[in-house]
């Protein structure tokens, strides 16, 4: 278990929304401009921009400007707090489920 951290919480919140998750997942397949994403999802351009801003705030995506277009791409290092969190809890449950198995052996039927 680890100390509360708003970095992890921001990632959780950003990925909790199904539309944002879908946009993020799409970006894992490659860089895209807002108009590319609009063509792909049935969401308005302002809504897409809002989702991208939330993903960027969580450190999950980055962007670059090219002429009039802004391209978004996944920022892989942004996932590290989440991966660390998951790694931690996998170890936690592995250990405690092991204890549960031992306890069951000693319990009365």
């Amino acid at each position, binding site marked *: 278990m680890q100390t509360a951290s708003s970095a*992890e919480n921001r990632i959780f919140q950003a990925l909790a929304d199904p539309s944002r998750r879908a946009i993020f997942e799409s970006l894992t397949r490659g860089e895209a401009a807002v108009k590319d994403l609009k063509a792909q999802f049935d969401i308005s351009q302002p809504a897409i921009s809002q989702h991208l801003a939330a993903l960027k705030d969580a450190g999950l995506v980055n962007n670059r400007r090219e002429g009039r277009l802004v391209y978004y791409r996944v920022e892989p290092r942004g*996932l590290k707090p989440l991966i660390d969190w998951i790694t931690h809890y996998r170890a936690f449950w592995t250990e405690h489920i092991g204890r549960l198995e031992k306890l069951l052996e000693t319990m009365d039927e």
Partner: protein
Amino acid sequence: MSLSDKTVPSQTEAIAFRIELRHPPEKVWRALTDPDLLAQWLLPTTGFALEPGGAFTLQAPPQPGWDGTVNCRLVEIEPLRKLRYTWVVGDIETVVTFTLAPTESGTALSVVQSGFKPDQKQNFGGARYGWKMMGGRLIDLLARSA
């Protein structure tokens, strides 16, 4: 008995275990719901009562910056089949689900911890906690970026 970590890339849940136990569901359920037994395998509890909406805490060893308290609330109780409670540490809110299924030799127990949308707090019953990892893709990405 075997403990298998199901969190391989093909799985969608970030933290999911499935364990085959040579003990009947009644006994496993007792270990999951009796405060004295919980203290022996999980963590010491305070205020645990098996009723929907019941709040309780789990006490882990304190660490710098965290007093070790896990705040929980029971959101689903299906005797001998399913137990689900929220698991809140600081501002990180997740939900833990235990599912029991009888087998010929005992019980198949699944343990899943997943995130959920904070603003669905008021709507536990119908809410889908649907936060899922997108398979192993995220971990692949992190590996590739190294």
